[in-house]
């Protein structure tokens, strides 16, 4: 099987179940200095996210095929080969203030657990962020996983100050999303950031916020994100 890593071809002369095994094979047998990251080997630590044929995958769970093209994920500074700087996650989480701000004593039940069960399966792999077309044109967009986190904390009954979260995502946040669904398709954990963003918009409306694109309609001539709108 031949695979291309950053446009260089490698012959994998061993049966492999995962792309991670193929990368390890290259490292041990062909190019020992090939730089890439991984951790748990079981799809839960988020370290090995990469792009295969233009789609985000986890190297540890993707089964490679002949002719696959591998590159690093996008919108993260490439440091070497497949190694990227993912530290932007910390600043996005800081900007969205994603944590409980004021704990309110509440007795939760099964229905409360289920409300954010899927959202809290996030492994912080950045696949959704890499897939999001808005990040390309608007680098300070808060992006899908941070907004999903916001949604999770906002609807948590234990949060005494849900408005803090809503306030934090108005600028460069929920209204910049085009609802294109790419994040949802990219997520290995079945999370649906797009729907969480829609829900956050509805919640924002109940706090008196309005879609800024509505008020600007006269200028930009459309809903939501307009790639020609001059960010």
């Amino acid at each position: 099987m031949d695979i291309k890593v950053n446009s260089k071809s490698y012959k994998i002369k061993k049966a492999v179940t995962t792309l991670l095994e193929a990368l390890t094979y290259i490292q041990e047998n062909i190019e020992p200095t090939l730089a890439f990251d991984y951790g748990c080997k079981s799809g839960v630590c988020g370290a090995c996210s990469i792009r295969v044929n233009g789609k985000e995958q986890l190297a540890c769970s993707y089964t490679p095929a002949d002719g696959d093209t591998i590159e690093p994920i996008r919108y993260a500074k490439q440091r070497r080969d497949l190694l990227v700087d993912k530290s932007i996650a910390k600043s996005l989480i800081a900007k969205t203030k994603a944590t409980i701000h004021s704990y309110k004593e509440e007795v939760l039940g099964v229905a409360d657990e289920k409300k954010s069960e899927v959202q809290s399966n996030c492994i912080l792999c950045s696949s959704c962020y890499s897939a999001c077309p808005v990040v390309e044109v608007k680098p300070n967009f808060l992006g899908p996983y941070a907004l999903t986190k916001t949604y999770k904390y906002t609807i948590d009954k234990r949060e005494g100050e849900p408005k803090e979260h809503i306030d934090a995502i108005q600028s460069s946040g929920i209204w910049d999303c085009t609802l294109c669904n790419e994040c949802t398709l990219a997520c290995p954990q079945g999370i649906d950031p797009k729907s969480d963003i829609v829900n956050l918009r509805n919640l924002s409306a109940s706090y008196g916020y309005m879609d800024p694109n509505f008020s600007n309609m006269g200028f930009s001539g459309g809903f939501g994100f307009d790639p020609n709108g001059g960010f």
Partner: protein
Amino acid sequence: MQMHDILVVGSGIAGLSAAVTAKQKGARVVVATKSSVSVGNSVMAQGGMNVALGNASSDSVELHIEDTLKSSHNLADPKMVAKMCQGGIEAIEFLEQIGVPFSRINGARSPLKSIAQRKLGGASAIRACYAQDYTGLKILHTLLDRAINLDIPLLEGLFLLEIIKNSKGQACGGLFLNIESGETQALYAKKIIVATGGFGAIYAKNTNSKTSTGDGIAAIFRAGGELSNLEFVQFHPTTLKGSNILISESARGAGGYLVNSKGERFIDELTTRDIIAKAEFEQIIQGEKVYLDLRHIGKEKLETLMPQELKLIKQYAKVDATKELIEIEPAVHYTMGGVSVNENLEVVGLENCYCIGETSNANVHGANRLGGNSLLEALSFGVLGAKEALKNSDAKPMEQEINYRLPIKKGSDNFALFRVKKRLSTLLFEKVGIVRDEKSLSEALQELEALNIESLTIDDNPSNSTLLLELLELKNANILAKALIKSALWRKESRGSHIRSDYPNESKEFECNSKINI
């Protein structure tokens, strides 16, 4: 020189809970970690965290202490176990308040009473608090969100090389490899908390994160700290053959059978991990294959009880567990031993350095850890470690002269590292594995010496070099492997996870910790 009150090394559940606790008490904290913040064993924990809440059966802290002591084969310290178990209540309250999305039960009277619990092996009550089968993931990320929002600097890509000591021999900082720049970098603090995890990943077959190479344990050892009980390595009986993905105890709890190639059951599936792992090992050396059989449980029940597991089995073993047998093998899962600490979690032999989580031997697991007790330890002692480290912290760290040479040399054979690593890890699995004896251990030690890992070098640009990390980890693995074998040779008895075929019984004489100093 920037001065911190506390330097935490490692961003697992132990490290982050210590950092958050210290920061909430007003300390200037910095966290350094070699990986991205979420990587380590913590996110992988599925089963749960033991806290005697008694939400699903009657339970008490006393009962929890008793179970833990029993499982330790008389090696755990009752005082430390009590500290850990009692600390669990405070720890889970803290988790509830920062928003951990635990699984719940309906109709509870108070927040803690609403947390769902399940039974894990060796527990006399239903005690493990969980968040579906993502317990570690959800705890870690909630802690991470909190740490970020408390403005704690989380420095990723810093690999701890050495503990820096002052002229009095006390710890006062850490020397790191800045992975991005390829240069060394020092961080100084009044107190150091090391939470770099265990060393399960140095074995050929293991369920651990790649990061668990015992770096912090080796660094503390080199700095004069004492290590203990390294010979107690827990093997998990149900991991997928080849990939060693963990299939949790719930598979057997739900009624799964263990069968050999002839389709015969060969062990009581509900007994403890060490006994099952040994029985499997005996089957395998007789040429049998070992399988987990879930077929009779039925598709519907399996899909509600263990959906996550079914997915993993399908993905990595390529079989449909509702219709087919799953080939399994035992693999290294947890390292009970580590850095010796006193009752305040300060390292024995290294003042001002504290050690928490899987890195330490805090005398709470002894010869066998109970499922669900390591998340508890990471949290309970994470919180306690921070509090202890903040006490009388009047130390005044000063910049120290440091000489460190990276093992890089032009013309080195870069493939050698992988050959040697494979040899070391296989050697450990085969000769220092589930069952050991004097002969296998001595052979392993001899062969290890001959590998001469100390002098191994690579030829690469040090900046962003994963090869360099591999080598640094291998050098630590080498130190731990030798210390582990020496401890296993010393313990001339069988106890818990340490099974010596030449000394098959427990011996009163060895009812104590093994200890290793430089």
